[in-house]
């Protein structure tokens, strides 16, 4: 089977990899004009935390994602997620506990000694994981390369077309919308955190994901907008003040990157595989690209080649 995958973000790379694993001849076309939204992702495999706002489907399927990634790109960081809240927003923590599963109450400083004396209690989601999305995409691409997948910036769409272009596919998917996200990357060698932290706040929730060597990704805003322009001052202020609330040493951090991107989303915010006029569309990743793209890629391969694989 010959396939052309459009787009080399997380959806496209997962689709290309799985199809190639099952014996398809795959070509990926990405003009490389825009940075994929997944390059700005947190890289969290946090199905239980996402359950706060996402439906059960995402929680269930998301639990298979960590193993999928680990099988293909090697070890990912499996140290769980710690959810905390400022003392006056403790009700947010209680609400989060009610809205999610897979957690235990814990003393934050026991998990992250750097938080000693700062937060009396937290929710620990032990089964969650994270990875550096850029490294993960690079490694997945290398793996796809090894499976014979070819990459091009343009060319003919031969064979079965799988459109994974994210927001760029809106010309074919009129119900797609963009949810703007803004993130920071900081160098904060004075802060020592080993796992993903989520700070709950009624207005500015944020997460901090360790990227190793004293670097942290701080994200991310959620704005109902298709404006991909530069990060706003408000976003930087909100994200940094949230980080500062987690640990004051973030005030001394060097800001090494500020980026804004557009998450492609459907009305229910659930990533989905669609078949339309002979094409497949793997889109609407919203906040769940790393969590859901592997499953959708497998689903795609089952639909396209299930018979083949069974016969083989």
């Amino acid at each position, binding site marked *: 089977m010959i396939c052309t995958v459009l787009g080399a973000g997380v959806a496209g790379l997962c689709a290309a990899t799985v199809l190639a694993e099952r014996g398809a001849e795959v070509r990926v076309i990405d003009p490389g004009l825009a940075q994929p939204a997944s390059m700005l992702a947190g890289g969290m495999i946090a199905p239980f935390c996402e359950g706060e*706002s*996402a*439906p059960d489907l995402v929680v269930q399927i998301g639990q298979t994602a960590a193993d999928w990634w680990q099988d293909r790109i090697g070890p990912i960081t499996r140290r769980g997620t710690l959810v905390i809240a400022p003392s006056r927003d403790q009700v947010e923590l209680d*609400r989060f506990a*009610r*809205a999610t599963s897979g957690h235990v109450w814990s003393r934050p400083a026991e998990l992250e000694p750097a938080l000693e004396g700062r937060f009396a209690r937290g929710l620990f989601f032990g089964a969650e994981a994270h990875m550096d999305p850029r490294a993960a995409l690079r490694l997945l691409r290398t793996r796809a390369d090894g499976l014979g997948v070819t990459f091009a910036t343009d060319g003919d769409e031969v064979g079965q077309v799988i459109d994974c272009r994210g927001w760029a596919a809106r010309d074919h998917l009129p119900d*797609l*919308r*963009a949810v*703007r996200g803004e993130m920071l990357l900081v160098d904060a060698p004075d802060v020592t955190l080993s796992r993903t932290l989520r700070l709950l706040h*009624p*207005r500015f929730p944020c997460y901090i994901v360790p990227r190793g060597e004293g670097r942290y990704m701080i994200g991310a805003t959620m*704005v*109902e*907008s*298709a*404006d991909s322009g530069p990060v706003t001052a*408000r976003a930087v202020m909100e994200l940094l003040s949230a980080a500062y609330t987690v640990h004051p040493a973030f005030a001394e951090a060097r800001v090494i990157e500020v980026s804004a991107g557009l998450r492609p*989303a459907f*009305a*229910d*915010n*659930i990533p989905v595989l669609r078949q339309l006029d002979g094409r497949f569309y793997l889109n609407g990743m919203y906040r769940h690209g790393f969590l859901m793209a592997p499953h959708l890629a497998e689903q795609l391969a089952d639909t396209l080649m299930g018979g083949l694989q069974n016969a083989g």
Partner: protein
Amino acid sequence: MFYGVELESRLMLGTAQYPSPAVLQQAIQASGTEVITVSLRREGQGGAGFRDLIAASGCRILPNTAGCHTAAEAVTTAQMAREVFQTNWIKLEVIGHADTLQPDPFALVEAARVLCADGFEVFPYTTEDLILGEKLVEAGCQVLMPWGAPIGSGQGLRNIDGLRAMRAHFPDIPLVVDAGIGAPSQAAQAMELGYDAVLLNTAVAKALDPVAMAAAFGQAVRAGQMAAQAGLMPRRDMAAASTPIFGMADFSASEGM
């Protein structure tokens, strides 16, 4: 009548913080609301995707100036809202403090004056202060929206006597309790006080099941409205026994004789 518009449902719903636009849409339907508020300050012109989705609900849109801290910002946002939503309605919100989200009464009156003169139909988010209410009416507002409690706090009606006084002071102005409502019982209470409508967001959007909570609020607002129309019995300090006590023996008086 809200600027000449008769509303069957007296629940107005905010559209922020829902798990998804699909859930928001279901919540709108379950609540029976006819008016939804939408913010614009942060989303700007780029928010068309979300706006198209909520416009599909068929509800009347009440754009708001949430996130504005000065009169000038609020006026600019209102003008943009009029263009984007093709409506003169504007929920005027001028925040005095980013942390407490308390309205800035001075900037509010200033912005209301400018907007009313410019043909806007202003729904000002205010406190229960009577003089402030008078200044807003003087500025041209034909609806007032006092807070129940600080935004997102879920405390309910924090100053019931103040809200009651406001109802008595402005018998002919439609009054809407806006902000602070956390439970359907509190929304019903506002309606029982004779308020014309209730506006809320977080209590529904952040419920574990927003659609079910929206339905609960819809019914509570309806119940409160019916109760107010039916005429609530006056509160008494003592039990009102249904059996006449005339002629009964007075034990306390006979004791010790």
